[in-house]
């Protein structure tokens, strides 16, 4: 699977939520684009990842 431009090894039967949690993402401060479409955070647990998927994940830090 491709994540932020890097190829990574995907374990079997992982939901997007499982993946984000194992990678230590804080889901309150990120946005995730799956295969070119934004994925609402309410759907993270329902999306099952596949080898051919492309993920873009952005994280926000505070300040403005």
């Amino acid at each position, binding site marked *: 699977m491709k994540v932020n431009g890097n190829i990574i090894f995907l374990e079997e039967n992982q939901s997007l939520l499982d993946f984000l949690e194992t990678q230590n993402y804080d889901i309150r401060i990120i946005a995730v*684009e799956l295969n070119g479409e934004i994925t609402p955070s309410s759907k993270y647990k329902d999306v099952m990842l596949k080898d051919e998927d492309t993920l873009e994940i*952005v994280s*926000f830090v505070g*300040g*403005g």
Partner: protein
Amino acid sequence: MKLTVNGQKMELHCQTAFQIREQIGNQSDIVILNGFQIAEDCEVTENDTLTIIRKGIMPKKEELESMMVARHTPNVHDKVKKAKVAIAGLGGLGSNIAIMLARIGVGQLLLVDFDIVEPSNLNRQSYYISHLGMQKTIALKKQIEEINPFIKVETKDTRVTEDNVKELFSGYDIICEAFDKPEVKALLVNTALEQLPDIKIVAASGMAGYDSSNLIRTVKPMKNLYMCGDFENGAKVGRGLMAPRVQICAGHQANMVLRLLLGIEEI
């Protein structure tokens, strides 16, 4: 020769810009030819736009607009004048972005913030002592009226939530995400990308402290999403937000907005 002088089409028998200045003004007047202030005399050609500004004199409102427009590069002003840009959060980023977009003549701005101006804002935000206690939306609108009274400014004193993003920002070309808290940044970006597929977002992440200016950059990580910042330096105890890097980041956002309004999608 047909020329536009101070916003009015005129038929003049002149060869050079300074000859026109002699006819309608005096020697100390500033001359702007097609968006550029000239120091040496230039020949003029048919359909040139010339603006002659008398120093220290308050112009009439209709003259003022043509004098301000004169300083914009031709073909840029028409596009930005038609544009509608929303600014979500009027802190260090949003207040400075709003002022820059007003200076370049963006036709319509929406200013969104729930908060009032406090003393702790003055280290980096575009407010004055005289604004303390005032709604940020109103304090900023007043400044914009002093800078460019030809901008239509709408204000919303509200918090942005998942439930009001669509209603607040529908009809705008671009949203500038200029919030402070990362959760609210993510909420706006997620909700707007999902519910408003035609809107572009120019967001910010990472501009605290005094690391190198050159770490702040613009990227386009997703369809319709541009992000500016160093993407690392969040505000925290011991690393506060300070005017220079916050304004550099605001400048990145404002310039990306300008580029998008001119049809340039590359960062």
